[in-house]
C-alpha cells in the first residue's frame, strides 16, 4: 500500500515537473507546478512529516503559486515569444549534461549511504511522547531553531519593504 502510494505520488510529482519545463504556455506550466507541489505534499505525508506536508500545500501550492498565476495573468503572458525550435535544440544539449552531473552526485551520495546510521534522538517514540509531529517540531523550533527563526522574521520584513519599493510606480 505504502509503496503504491509512493509510486503514484512520485510519478505525479516528477511527471508534472517535467510538464512545467516542457509546456510552452506559462499558465499551464504554473498549473502543472501546483500539481507537482501538491503530490509532493503526499510524499511528505508518507514520510510522517504532517506539518511540512500541510505547509507544502498551504504555502507552496496555495500562496506562492497563486502569486505566480496572479502575475502571469496580470502581465497577460502568451506562449509566443519563445522560439520552439531553438528550445528543442537546447533540450537536446541540456538533458544529457544535467543527467550526467546529477547522476554523478547521486552515485556519490548512494555510495556514502552505507555508512549512514540513525544518529538523532527524535525517533517515532520521542515524537509520540511530545504529542505528535507538530508539537515536537514546535518545541524544536523555539529551542534549537530560535535564532534562525528570528532572523527569518527580519528577512520577511525586508522582503515586504523591498517589494513595496520595487512595485511602486515612480511619480514624476
Amino acid at each position, binding site marked *: *500500500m*505504502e509503496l503504491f*502510494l509512493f509510486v503514484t505520488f512520485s510519478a505525479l510529482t516528477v511527471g508534472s515537473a517535467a510538464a512545467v519545463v516542457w509546456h510552452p504556455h506559462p*499558465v499551464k506550466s504554473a*498549473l502543472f507546478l*501546483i500539481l507537482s507541489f501538491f503530490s509532493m505534499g*503526499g510524499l511528505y*505525508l*508518507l514520510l*510522517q512529516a*504532517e*506539518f511540512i*506536508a*500541510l505547509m507544502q*500545500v*498551504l504555502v507552496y*501550492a*496555495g*500562496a506562492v*503559486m*497563486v*502569486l505566480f*498565476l*496572479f502575475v502571469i*495573468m*496580470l502581465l497577460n503572458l502568451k506562449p509566443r515569444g519563445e522560439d520552439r525550435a531553438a528550445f528543442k535544440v537546447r533540450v537536446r544539449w541540456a538533458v544529457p549534461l544535467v543527467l550526467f552531473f546529477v547522476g554523478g552526485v547521486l552515485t556519490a551520495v548512494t555510495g556514502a549511504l552505507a555508512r549512514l546510521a540513525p544518529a538523532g534522538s527524535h525517533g517515532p517514540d520521542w515524537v509520540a511522547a511530545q504529542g*505528535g*509531529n*507538530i508539537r515536537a517540531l514546535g518545541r524544536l523550533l523555539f529551542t534549537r531553531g530560535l535564532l534562525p527563526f528570528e532572523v527569518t522574521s527580519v528577512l520577511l520584513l525586508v522582503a515586504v519593504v523591498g517589494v513595496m519599493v520595487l512595485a511602486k510606480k515612480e511619480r514624476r
Partner: protein
Amino acid sequence: MTEAVTNTGGDWLRLIVGLILVLIFSQLNALFLVWLERKVAGHIQLRYGPMEVGPHGLLQTIVDGIKLVGKELITPFKADKKLFVIAPVLVFMPVLVPFLVLPFGPELIIRDMNVGLLLIFAFSTFSVLAILVGGWASNNKYALLGAIRSVAQNVAYEIPLLLSVMSVVLMVHSFKFSELVMAQQRIWFIFLQPVAAIIYFICATAETNRAPFDIPEAESELVAGFHTEYSGMRFGLFFLAEYTNMFIVCAVATSLFLGGWHGPFGFSLGIPGVVWFLAKTYFLLFVLMWFRWTFPRVRFDQLMNFSWKVLIPLSMLNLLVTALVLKFV
C-alpha cells in the same frame, strides 16, 4: 494525519460512510441555504420570497437545480477548453475536505486530526485557485477582472484571518478540533477573544466573497465576475461550492469562538451537542445573509485599505496582547 493515509485498519468503513454522508449533507445544506437566502432577502425587502413550490417554497431550489441540470453547457469559442471544464470541478473538490475534520458533536468527527484546523485553511486556498483558473480560461475580460480581484481580496483577508485564529490556538495549544472545543466547556472564546472573533467573521465574509465584500462578482461593474461565461450545472457547481464554503467558515467560527457543541456557560439544557452546533452555525449563516441585505458593497480601494491598514495591525496587536497575557497572567 499520517494514519489517514497509511493505516489500513478498521477505520476504512468509517471514512467511506463519512464521505457519503458529507456528500449528501453538503448538497442538502446548499439547497437549503439558497432557499433560506431567498427567504431572508424577501422578508428584509417586505415580500414573501418563493412561495409556489412546496410549503413556503421549500422545494423551489430543488426544482431550480433540475432546471440547471437540464440546461445546455456552453463553452465559449475562444475559451481554453480543458481548463474551462476543469475549473468547476476544481472549485468543488476542496470544499468537501474540511468536512473530514469539522466537529459536529463529541462523537461526530470523521477524523479528529492533530492538524485539523491547518487542514481546513490549506484547502481553502484552493477555491481561489479554481476561481483564477475559471476566470482566466473563460477568455472574457469581466471574468478575468473578477478572478484577479478575487485573488487580491483573498490574499489580503487571509492574513488577518489566520492571525485571529492563531490567538485562539495560542490559548489552547492545539490545532485539534476536539481540544479546541473542549477548552470552551465553561466559557466560549468569543468572551475571551472578542476582537479575534469579530476579525475572523469579517474576514470570513470576505473570504467567501459575500456582500458587502462581493467585489469579484459585483454585477453592476463586472456582469457576474469570474463565472460570467459559465452556464448550466457548471455554474451550479460554483454556486454549490460557494454555499458549502459559507457553511464551512461558519462551522469553524462556531467551533473556535461559540463553543462548538457546548451550550452557553456549561449548560447544555439536555439538548444534544450536534443540535447546539448546527443551531449556532445556521445562526451565523443567517447573520451572513443579513449582512448582504444591510450593507452596500464597498469600493475596491476601501476593501484593500481596510484589510491592510486596519485588520492586519489590529489582529497582530491582538495576538501580541494574547501572548503577553498568557505569559504573565
